[in-house]
């Protein structure tokens, strides 16, 4: 599974309240949630996030268990999140709703906002297209790739219940 996108770069401890503030938790339509993605930290996010890949520092997605956070990013057009580390609930939620998330400690320092990159989830290879830079990340285990291939756990369960 390979993903291409333009880098949007953020720092450490980007929490779920920054990704989608609490006042929007009564929204039920993910497209509506997407309009407020990253509103707490970057007011211009929704203008530039189509087909983007977020590259963040430590502890991305810390805080709440709200699945609305990865949903808002996914529906806003974010293709993948690469972080030095993730908060564990966000990480599970991201995979479960079909937003690829991959850990890499060293990539952040090498990449710049706006770089075009390729993410190879299966082999854990991150490539900066124009700079001929390749970085090894932690590849995803097969059961997570299976979930992502189907676009999320819900779709996988649908497929399994149909069998």
């Amino acid at each position, binding site marked *: 599974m390979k993903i291409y996108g333009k880098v949007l770069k953020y720092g450490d401890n980007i*929490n779920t309240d*920054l990704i989608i503030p609490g006042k929007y938790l009564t929204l039920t339509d993910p497209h509506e949630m997407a309009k407020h993605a990253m509103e707490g930290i970057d007011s211009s996010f929704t203008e530039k996030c189509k087909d983007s890949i977020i590259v963040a520092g430590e502890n991305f997605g810390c805080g709440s*268990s709200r699945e609305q956070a990865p949903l808002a990013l996914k529906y806003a057009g974010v293709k993948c999140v690469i972080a030095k580390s993730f908060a*564990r609930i966000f990480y*599970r*939620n991201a995979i479960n*709703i079909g937003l690829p998330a991959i850990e890499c400690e060293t990539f952040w320092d090498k990449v710049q906002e706006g770089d075009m990159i390729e993410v190879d989830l299966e082999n854990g290879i991150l490539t900066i297209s124009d700079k001929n830079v390749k970085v090894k990340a932690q590849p995803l285990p097969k059961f997570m790739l299976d979930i992502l291939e189907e676009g999320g756990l819900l779709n996988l*369960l*649908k497929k399994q219940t149909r069998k």
Partner: protein
Amino acid sequence: MNIIEKILAKASGKREVVPGEIVEANIDCAMVNEITGHLSIRYLQELGIEKVWDSDKIVMVIDHTVPAASVEAAELHKIMRRFARSQNIKYFYDIGFGGIAHQVMVEKGHVVPGNVIVGADSHTCTYGALGAFATGIGSTEMAAVFIKGKLWFKVPKVIRIYVEGSFKEYVTAKDLFLKIAEILGENGANYRGLEFGGPTVASMNIAERMTICNMAIEVGAKTGIVEADEKTLAYLKYRTNKSFQIIKSDDKNSYERSLEVDVSNLPPLVACPDSVANVKPVSEVEGIEVDQVFIGSCTNGRLEDLKIVAKILKGKKIKNGTRLVIVPASQEVYLEALKEGLIETFISSGAIVANPTCGACYGGHIGVLASDEVCVSTTNRNFIGRMGSPKSKVYLASPATAAASALEGKIKDPTTLRWAS
């Protein structure tokens, strides 16, 4: 093995587990609130699931916006009610019958030692106070749990936190956790479990243990846990009919590391904006003017917390220009506080007392902050914009520090409050 490993081994039918191992555990109890539950319910409907795995093991609580503050919130409540009715959910706590889910789960006997409990809310880790393994999950996983009654977990490495010494008056479990947050940092326990022990934890009541376990997630932990003891049994005696087994750690080498904290000389602490790990002694930030003080939440809205607040406020008025909002964590706490005269003390001091709800803590309703306002809050997060405007500032503190600050209209160390009334 340590307590977390033992519980996960038992729940997954294994004799032994090791950190890093992925196990599929049976779930003893699963909790949703309306903010997360509506998504799980929608997913179940999309999947065409007609019956949940066990309608007696699911607890549903309406707590985030109580009572409904908007049409949108009311719609989420309606989704919860309809689902609870259609699935014959035995334990559905509608408005007026529960309160904040984490308090309700514990006081209504849904949490017992040795259980594996998941909740679609990050502060599910609170239940570790009774010796259960409890952790927060998302709405999609909760839908999967509702179908199968099982979930995969990676067995976490565990950090043991050994606490000794006696607290000085008006220094509390909240201050202890803020100290731990300062030491570990905002992600210092990411993917890990925290096991709290030692003589100080042994002498803590269940409310205090709930406060420290509740905040485990704030340093990234999967859960916080305290071994069950006589106090746990006494607490549960009239609250649950569930059978359970007390599980204890028996291997000192099963921890990734140990941290020792002596609370004897611990001063009251605050977490300054915008991080739980940005901790300072209250004395260092004394004098900062405060617009609002909030006392409540799953962290510090219990009867024991309210008693400390009442002791400080009794017979006094809060500072003109500062507003004090007090929210008991549950209907049960509210009623007890009323019977004990605490509510009268609060109202006489100039506080507004609101019904149990998560509202203020996440910037939903009942105490939302305007731009440039400063709030001293007994809640668990002070992220930018958490309680309202992104330009507001939140200082996390104990109920004692919060009450003292309300009297002074400025951040105030409760241990040095002058008792002129």
